[in-house]
């Protein structure tokens, strides 16, 4: 189950990165490219353990940086920090509630690009920032917030559809049956 979930998450991360880079449409409408990796990281942090989270950050982050002008590793670190923060508090989070998923998605979508930009600035790079960046940040935050509940829905559906469930054992035992008489 965990392996299946991890493979599904990694495939989704690669597809998400490719779609972000290949599709011109959201950027043409919104003047901003949306990022689906933070929403995937929210799911990984709440539904899986550290190995899957680390793999997702490595594969998704390095894939993102490979198609972008980022130095390799920037997105990985940003995703790991966000994932670790959510994972550390996951027992206190109502992870089944869509509103909680939306808020966490927004939080991850806001923090991931912020951390990446801070890392780039600390490395002496000069990313293209301006007033437009605030709008792009808002779009990234909202898109991530909206895609987090959808991610949960899709992955839960995939698990139900593709992974067999264990038959739950009943508590019935023939030797413990109470045989009643007429009265």
């Amino acid at each position: 189950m965990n392996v299946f979930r991890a493979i599904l998450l990694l495939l989704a991360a690669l597809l998400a990165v490719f779609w972000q880079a290949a599709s011109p449409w959201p950027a043409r409408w919104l003047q901003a490219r949306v990022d689906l990796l933070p929403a995937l990281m929210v799911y990984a942090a709440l539904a899986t353990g550290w190995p899957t989270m680390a793999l997702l950050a490595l594969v998704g982050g390095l894939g993102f940086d490979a198609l972008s002008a980022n130095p390799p590793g920037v997105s990985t670190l940003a995703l790991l920090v966000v994932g670790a923060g959510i994972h550390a508090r996951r027992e206190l989070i109502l992870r089944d509630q869509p509103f909680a998923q939306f808020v966490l998605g927004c939080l991850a979508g806001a923090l991931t690009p912020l951390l990446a930009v801070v890392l780039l600035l600390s490395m002496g790079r000069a990313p293209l920032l301006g007033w437009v960046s605030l709008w792009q940040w808002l779009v990234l935050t909202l898109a991530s917030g909206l895609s987090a509940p959808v991610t949960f829905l899709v992955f839960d559906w995939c698990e139900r559809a593709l992974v067999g469930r264990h038959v739950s054992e009943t508590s019935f035992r023939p030797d413990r049956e109470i045989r009643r008489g007429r009265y």
Partner: protein
Amino acid sequence: MLKRPQYVVGFLAVALALAALSLPESAAARLKLALGSLFLPLFGLVGAAQHAADRASQAVLPRSELIRRNESLRRENEQLRLQAMQAAAIARENERLRQQLGWQQRHSAWNLKLARVILRDPANWWRTVHIDLGRRDGARENLPVLTSDGLVGRIAAVGLMRSQVVLLGDPACRVSAQVLNETRDTGVLGAAGPLDRALVDLDFLPRSAVLQPGQAVVTSGLGGLFPAGIPIGQIVDWRPVESGLYLRARVRLAAHLSALEEVWVLLP
């Protein structure tokens, strides 16, 4: 409470990311190209899907529409042939006059190769695209990339089958540019503006430059990367900066960088 294996996995991931971050420039570029090859099956899939969609759209296009487009293309072709004849006549005259004056030939014919834009930078803070022209097609680093409207950028990294192009307005793409005014003032085209990404700053123009809105800006040919005379855009406005030491003008780019689909690479 965190357990030891979790610490180890997290530590390993952070160490790998830090190792990737601390790679030298050339090794990082090679790593990125290698990682980018993970997406090769998806490139093939998208290419096949686009091809199928094109064929399907051609199959359902009405005959009258095809005839109309054919007629429009025929007219445009005739116009272009006339312009090409005129340009050839001017070039011959130019060559004859140069021979009479004993001047060296400055420009050779451009060797252009068409490339398709296959990916755009997924990060919002860079302006790069990937094109389907690589080392096997003759692409090299720093070759100019343009459209029929004007300059687009330069090739920054080359793989076997694709290349990364940094577009005008990206901090990594600086171009020596010339304003087509009486004094032919030159400056350096830098990063895009904070509000409108179609406006790019032209820095280090002399204080005495006589600028007008709408004046054309072309490549100056200085620096050796870009040949002179490629259109870049038009002057929008200008202001003195650095206590009036020089002028900074805003240039509206001629090429629509957000809607690039096909570009030309200027091969040596």
